[in-house]
């Protein structure tokens, strides 16, 4: 029996989901004749208020992208305002993904000795910020940044500093953050009474991330040791032995390795795309699988808590689609090429 709090959250999510763009809307946006027409069409959607705020002059793709990211952040964090208790904590852990992305950007900037501003970060409401971003933004060295994270939930990053310093590769710090995120989320989901489908959704996300990384590593000729370090340490439909076999195999040997049937089909297609040097399309394939899975889950489980998590995934899909459309329109990418990059 679901509690009233859960039922309320699911009911509200149904309302929020009705604001998301339908596939037909995305296709209509794809067929527009440029950024200007795209903006005109967006004025009839949920983005109209934000658009009127930035539309004093004709907005650029960069401004639009920023707006889509802000909307995504608002959509994710608005869920926290209509829930509380353990459910709130679960969603807070889920949404910390944006903060982790921000931390990764800061790590990269410090590593490359670049200075960035908060414009380059996802906007996170102050009450949900676990770290002091303004201080992190002015940190000059990695040890300074690690010091600033000492009082945060990411304090264990310190243990990976030595590895970073010896390899001069920020992947070791980033992987700590990713692993922590997924481990915490996994543990938090496990505490709910309706964990099954949610774990399947998050597990699919992890599997897709790992599979994409493994296929990409063959193209990028990454050392197997580095690939092993970059794998999210959670198992869903990929066993440890399977992952090891995939990491050790050559690109052409990947389709022969036994994996779950749906994954086998994606891997086969992904290898073909890498062979054709269509790397962006290969990446789209894995994300497309995840978003399709989220959409199917939301259709199959309209009254379950997983519906909320599917909605959160679909918000990301919409933001990525709109970003691709805005940039594609501004850089005059062909309709066909742009369509291949969309998650429809």
């Amino acid at each position: 029996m679901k509690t009233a709090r859960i039922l309320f959250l699911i009911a509200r999510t149904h309302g929020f989901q009705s604001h998301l763009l339908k596939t037909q809307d995305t296709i209509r946006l794809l067929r527009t004749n440029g950024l200007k027409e795209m903006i005109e069409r967006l004025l009839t959607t949920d983005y109209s208020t934000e658009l009127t705020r930035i539309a004093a002059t004709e907005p650029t793709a960069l401004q639009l992208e920023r707006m889509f990211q802000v909307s995504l952040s608002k959509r994710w964090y608005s869920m926290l305002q209509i829930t509380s208790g353990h459910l709130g904590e679960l969603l807070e852990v889920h949404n910390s993904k944006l903060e982790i992305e921000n931390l990764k950007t800061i790590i990269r900037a410090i590593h490359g000795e670049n200075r960035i501003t908060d414009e380059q970060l996802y906007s996170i409401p102050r009450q949900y910020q676990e770290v002091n971003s303004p201080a992190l933004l002015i940190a000059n060295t990695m040890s300074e940044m690690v010091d600033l994270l000492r009082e945060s939930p990411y304090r264990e990053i310190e243990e990976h500093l030595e590895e970073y310093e010896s390899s001069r590769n920020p992947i070791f710090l980033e992987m700590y953050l990713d692993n922590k995120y997924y481990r915490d989320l996994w543990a938090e989901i496990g505490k709910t009474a309706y964990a099954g489908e949610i774990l399947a959704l998050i597990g699919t996300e992890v599997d897709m991330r790992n599979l994409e990384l493994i296929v990409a590593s063959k193209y990028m000729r990454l050392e197997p040791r580095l690939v092993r370090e970059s794998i999210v340490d959670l198992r869903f439909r990929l066993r440890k032995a399977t992952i090891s076999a995939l990491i050790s195999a050559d690109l052409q040997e990947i389709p022969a390795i036994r994996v779950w049937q749906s994954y086998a089909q994606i891997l086969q297609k992904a290898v073909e795309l890498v062979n054709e040097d269509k790397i962006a399309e290969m990446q789209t394939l894995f994300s497309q699988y995840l978003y399709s899975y989220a959409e199917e889950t939301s259709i199959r489980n309209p009254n379950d808590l997983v519906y909320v998590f599917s909605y959160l995934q679909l918000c990301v899909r919409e933001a990525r689609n709109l970003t691709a459309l805005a940039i594609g329109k501004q850089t005059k990418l062909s309709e066909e090429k742009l369509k291949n990059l969309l998650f429809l």
Partner: protein
Amino acid sequence: MASAARTSPTRGALVRLRTNLEFVQNGLNVLKLKRDRLAEELNLLLKEMNGRDKAEEQLMSIYSDFKTALAMQGNLRVRSAAYSVEKMKVNVNELSIMNVLVPKMRIDKKPSMSVIQDPSLYKVAEKMITLIDEWLDVARVEASIERIAYELTLVNRKVNALEKVVIPSYSTQIKYIEEFLSDEELEDFTRIKRLKAMSRETKT
């Protein structure tokens, strides 16, 4: 030449003008040698410029890949990935060709692309870092051509000025003084002859 025009038609001035003319002619020869050497260098550099078309073609192909990667990842993610790449270190020295300083570039440290985790961005970055040598070379050739061509114009101008203004003016002056001195000599000779004749008449 104004200074030459003012020169008084004396033997001393003639010697000075002849010395100057010899010096100017030597200078002209040196400038002509410099012009030939620069023209030769320019021709060699122009041949090297043929590589630009190929480099441009490759750059456009990379740009197309970049547009795809940018559309897929978005500016925020692309920038985030780019931040991790360390800066490239290029050593720029100057090389003197006939006193024209042309740049000479050497990449001291290429940034490692292994820190980029996104494969489509890695693809673009990897291609770009390979092409960067060619583009640095194109930049070196273009800068050298620009500087040599500028110097060549100056040298040409100087050669033309010497050939068409300075040397003809010296020659005219020398000719004028020579004629003047020759006339003077003839006058002196006639005068002496006349004086001799007059003295002979007085004796008889």
